[in-house]
């Protein structure tokens, strides 16, 4: 029997959040955590969580499972369960809308700040802006981000300054566009990042690398941004 403890909060009826315990017979199968949630929802239809693709592509079901952020749909029980116990909480640091559903506005706001789109003021060519295979390769490890927020909500600096520190996810995307040979706004992008909070609140804790379900490395991207700021200043 799997003991599951889930964070519950319905602001319409509950004065405070609480943990609710469930029992589940997994039939000895190594289910994904999302499967567990689906089975529990059959028992208790009031349970709320986000999900969509159920295969680690959409980034909707980022959750905190036994203390570690990850995507419920691609986290097998064998990877997270300790002594038949599974504790599921919403992603830490963001306001809870209901149960496991968090309000991602702050996260998206930081994403928006880095202008996550190509800026190029040169006249567009007839067909498309070409890029050499080498330049294209610089975007590997950056473009794959699915904005699940697992990294930013695992980052203490983001917990303390979610309004001013862009966070690992946003900074990974900032570097994705700084590194793009087709983008011409490097100077403006760097100028927007050179305050004491946006980039420099990263203290290299590296929780982001530890939790990213896509195996990306935001800390390295932040290092590249810092080096670019240094190069631009000297």
């Amino acid at each position, binding site marked *: 029997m799997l003991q599951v403890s889930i964070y519950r909060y319905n602001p319409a009826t509950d004065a405070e959040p609480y943990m609710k315990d469930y029992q589940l017979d997994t039939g000895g199968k190594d289910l994904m955590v999302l499967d567990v949630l689906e089975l529990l929802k059959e028992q208790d239809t009031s349970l709320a969580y986000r999900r969509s693709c159920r295969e680690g592509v959409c980034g909707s079901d980022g959750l905190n499972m036994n203390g570690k952020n990850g995507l419920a749909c691609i986290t097998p029980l064998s990877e997270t369960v300790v002594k038949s116990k599974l504790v599921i909480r919403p992603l830490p640091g963001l306001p809870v809308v209901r149960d496991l559903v968090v309000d991602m506005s702050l996260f998206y706001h930081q994403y928006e700040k880095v202008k996550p789109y190509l800026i190029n003021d040169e006249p567009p060519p007839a067909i498309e802006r070409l890029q050499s295979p080498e330049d294209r390769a610089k975007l590997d490890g950056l473009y794959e981000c699915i904005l699940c927020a697992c990294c930013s909500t695992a980052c203490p600096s983001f917990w*303390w300054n979610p309004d001013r520190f862009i966070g690992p996810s946003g900074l990974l995307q900032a570097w994705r566009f700084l590194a793009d040979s087709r983008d011409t706004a490097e100077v403006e992008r760097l100028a927007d990042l*050179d*305050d*004491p909070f946006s980039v*420099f609140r990263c203290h290299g804790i590296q929780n982001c690398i530890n939790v990213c379900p896509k195996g990306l490395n935001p800390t390295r991207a932040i290092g590249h941004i810092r080096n670019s*700021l240094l190069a631009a200043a000297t």
Partner: protein
Amino acid sequence: MVTSITSFGRSGLSDWLVQRVTAVILLAYTIFITWQLVCGTDYQQWSALFDQTWVRVFSLSALLSTVAHAWVGLWSVSTDYLVEHVLRIKTNEFLASRANLLRWAFQGACGIVAFYYLVWGIQVLWS
């Protein structure tokens, strides 16, 4: 937005650089002083050591580095923890509503202590 006005330098980059450069100076000074102590010092040796101008200048640069390093570091700490939403979670509404005041008081106290040690240090070195 709180930006360079209240931080030590003009930008996040300069704060970051100050932190790294001062750390190197402090490391060098720590090794130097430890080495002197390990080699054994009596009053005569110690006072002869500090009679040399370069030792005083080196000590003063270490002192200035401590002040700068501590200011950048503690400014970061205060802007992480002494803010309204963090105090609301960690303490109570009373302190949370006075977060700005608390933070400025803390930063002011840090500034005064740093200034005090600096002036005192200069006095010790050049008297």
